[in-house]
């Protein structure tokens, strides 16, 4: 029987960590993306090895904070040493004019999708 750990990719992931993981506090920085639609923003986080119940989303004025505990410890070789991680954590600045009270979130296949409606403001222009 093949041991799972024996399986190694021919592709080599970069050694330099550009995502600023916090090795000391065992925190990984998740990938995220923000896309703009006509009346809302869609913010996505890639959170593999996480259960829905272990995700915490908080708003702090114009910032959104995501924290999630991993189902199992994740280890990674980093220049001769092994780093262990237990959490995902990230804070992002949000675009202006959003309605964060109407924000909704969905979690499927380890991807957190947050829909943030845009605030409707301004005044109508009458067409004559």
């Amino acid at each position: 029987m093949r041991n799972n750990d024996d399986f190694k990719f021919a592709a080599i992931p970069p050694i330099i960590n550009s995502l600023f993981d916090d090795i000391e506090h065992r925190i990984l920085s998740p990938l995220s993306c923000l896309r703009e639609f006509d009346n809302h923003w869609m913010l996505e986080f890639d959170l593999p090895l996480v259960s829905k119940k272990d995700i915490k989303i908080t708003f702090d004025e114009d910032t959104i904070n995501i924290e999630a505990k991993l189902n199992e410890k994740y280890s990674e070789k980093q220049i001769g040493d092994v780093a262990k991680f237990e959490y995902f954590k990230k804070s992002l600045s949000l675009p202006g004019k959003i309605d964060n009270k109407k924000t909704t979130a969905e979690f499927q296949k380890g991807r957190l999708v947050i829909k943030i409606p845009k605030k409707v403001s301004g005044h109508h222009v009458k067409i004559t």
Partner: protein
Amino acid sequence: MKIAKYNTNENTLLVGFPSNGLVGTFSVSYLIHHLKMKQIGEIEIPDLPLTLFVEEGEILSPIRVYNKNNLFVIISDVPFNQYLAEEFALAVNEFCKKNAIKKIVIASGMETVDQKKDSPKIYGLVTHSILDGLLYNNQISKFLNGSIFGTDAAIISVFRKTNIPALVLYAECHPFFPDPEASIVVIITLAKILDVKIDTRDIENKIDKLRIQYRNLMKETIQTLQQQQEKKTRAPQIYR
């Protein structure tokens, strides 16, 4: 024994490089591993920023060539902007001429409209109609309408002017996150095309860990692809 048979008489080249969802990286890499292919060389691109990888003390070039029987593989660990992509495609074309390659298969990903889909769909785009039969025989939907730009467009543009036909396999994927699940669909399709048996359990068991492990390469790839999209009107927005 995971390799059933490989009875293709023609020399075939499989190409993978980082793009949407890292589909090409995952699928081609997995095939190299499972077919126990041997590294036979490296490809140098003059304008590529000098990069070397060190693994278990061994110095490796970012663009490597593997071989087993009639199958050749070229894999890149670095993403290309459209200018480097063209140079890469020209270098691949030179390799094809020297090694009597009869067809090229490129594994890639395309943004899916519906992220909630259970199984990603796969599409095929051929540069020469002689490969249409390959799509039909392997039940691959033909890429009928859409636009291709940047890296993929640069590579396809080079191959469509040559005599060597190329098939680009596009699996629906998440464009900004590593998507090993979409790569499995490509691996299964490649196995059919190449007439080899591939057990996908190893990658299935590691999907979540691969998504974490390859975050940096995904980020690097998005940055490279977005450099060439800056002038486009629909440039996706990404937070770091």
